[in-house]
């Protein structure tokens, strides 16, 4: 019957398309989204396009100011530090270290945390209550402090920092997932799906996850910024990435002594990090708002 499909050419935007449309309407989030995309792009291919190696020391050009100043040199776009290393190249490499690693670590924490949280959320009785109280105890400690403790046990270094941050982020994901799953399980369409004969896993996959995705996305954006702050903070304290590494926190800590003579060394990584954190958070909130309102036309 041809008339059956007469309207099928009209496109019905799904909830995700609608959310995307809504997200794009918000200019601030859209600009921030572009910035985040730019940072991700830099993090991925940056190391291949940077003009110099981050460790390359040009002894002839020590503490060169950025190129727009009269004393600057156009070969070193953002100047050089006290060992003659190119700040621009170091920032690019730092992007993949600080930001790239944060993205990956937060994603790892998301995968582990959400699956643990789903397990905890779907289980009942004493098991879930033990889980809950344990997590509450862990969550009551500030994440940076916990990371410091873990690094203190494992010893300093970027690798150990990554593990520490991962371990710190997991409980937050577990907790959030567990709470939203609990809320979701009370709703009637879950009962309806159960009466359809759906297994617990099926319910989790088809009925619960599509509805809790917005909280997970928000949590992810929070986790990314927390991870960045933690990695940078540990680097700054000398517990994470070691001196000389192009990690943003370590760069800041290296340049802090020279702040009166060469302020750009501290300001440039600071600005980059600020911009990065701000846009990640804004994008997270924008996405969440868009997803939240997708089912209210």
């Amino acid at each position, binding site marked *: 019957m041809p008339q059956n499909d007469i309207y099928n050419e009209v496109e019905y935007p799904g909830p995700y398309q609608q959310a995307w449309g809504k997200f794009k309407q918000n200019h601030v989030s859209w600009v921030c989204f572009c910035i985040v995309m730019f940072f991700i792009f830099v993090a991925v291919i940056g190391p291949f396009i940077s003009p110099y190696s981050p460790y390359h020391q040009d002894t002839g050009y020590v503490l060169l100011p950025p190129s727009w100043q009269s004393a600057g040199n156009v070969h070193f776009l953002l100047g050089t530090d006290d060992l003659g290393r190119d700040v621009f190249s170091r920032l690019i490499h730092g992007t993949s270290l600080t930001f790239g690693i944060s993205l990956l670590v937060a994603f790892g924490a998301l995968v582990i945390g959400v699956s643990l949280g789903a397990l905890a959320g779907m289980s009942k009785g004493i098991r879930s209550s033990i889980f809950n109280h344990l997590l509450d105890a862990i969550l009551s400690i500030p994440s940076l402090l916990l990371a410091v403790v873990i690094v203190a046990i494992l010893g300093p270094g970027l690798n150990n920092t990554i593990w520490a941050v991962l371990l710190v982020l997991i409980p937050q994901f577990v907790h959030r997932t567990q709470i939203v799953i609990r809320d979701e399980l009370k*709703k009637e*369409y879950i009962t309806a799906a159960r*009466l359809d*004969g759906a297994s617990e896993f099926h319910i989790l996959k*088809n009925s619960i996850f599509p*509805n809790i995705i917005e909280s997970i996305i928000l949590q992810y954006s929070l986790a990314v910024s927390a991870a960045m702050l933690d990695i940078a903070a540990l680097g700054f304290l000398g517990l994470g990435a070691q001196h000389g590494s192009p990690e943003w926190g370590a760069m800041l800590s290296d340049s802090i002594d020279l702040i009166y003579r060469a302020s750009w060394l501290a300001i440039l990584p600071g600005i980059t990090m600020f911009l990065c954190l701000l846009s990640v958070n804004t994008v997270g909130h924008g996405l969440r708002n868009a997803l939240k309102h997708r089912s209210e036309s």
Partner: protein
Amino acid sequence: MSVLLEVNDLSKTYNKRILPWKVKKVTALEKISFSIDAYQTLAIVGETGSGKSTLAKLLAGAEMPSTGEILLDGQALYTKAHKERCSHIRMIFQDPATSLNPSLSIGQILEEPLKLNTNLTAIEREDKVKKTLARVGLLSDYMWHYPHMLSSGQKQRVALARALILDPKIIVADKPFAAMDPSTRSQMVNLLLELQQTFGIAYIFVSHNLNIVKHISDQIFVMQDGKVVEQGKTLDILKSPRHTLTQKLLYSQQMLRKS
């Protein structure tokens, strides 16, 4: 005609933990037995907390009974044998707005029970979905819509379609008309009655609107505190109610002159 559904000594008690070491038993539903035939409608009325929703949930399998058994066509149903039960006894919830998953399209919502309970291919499933939508008076285009695009009346139709899609013998409905406008409600009543006459479905309604109950039901249970205080043919009971609760209910809906 043989009995379609038979319920023997069904009851439900909850354990309520007052203190960690002290458990109090709360009886939500005392032992109840009844039977219902095809083409029949049973209405359950009562006040809040009288156990009528509990009974509906037990019948639909949303909760496990504490004692008793449910026989469908003479065969015992256990809550664990989900497959069998969910294709024969289906449930409609009070609020269609919350009983439809907001992130699935209507087509996906309707396809779900088919995927889980039948071995139909994708094409057959789509066909069935379209047919069922037509049966509840919706265009097949609604397959591509999402619940938030529909009005509440249409949502309730979708909920009904989800119940119908497995060709059930019994539909349990928990206050399906409570949140409806009069004209949508009448449309829904008409639709339900039509379906009953064509397919011989038995309905079990939980409701508090005696007007509707009177119109659609054959048998009626009046419940109070987990007990059935009055039961029988709808017309008889509404004409000469014996129990004070029935009288009170009738009176409160202006269906009885105060004597």
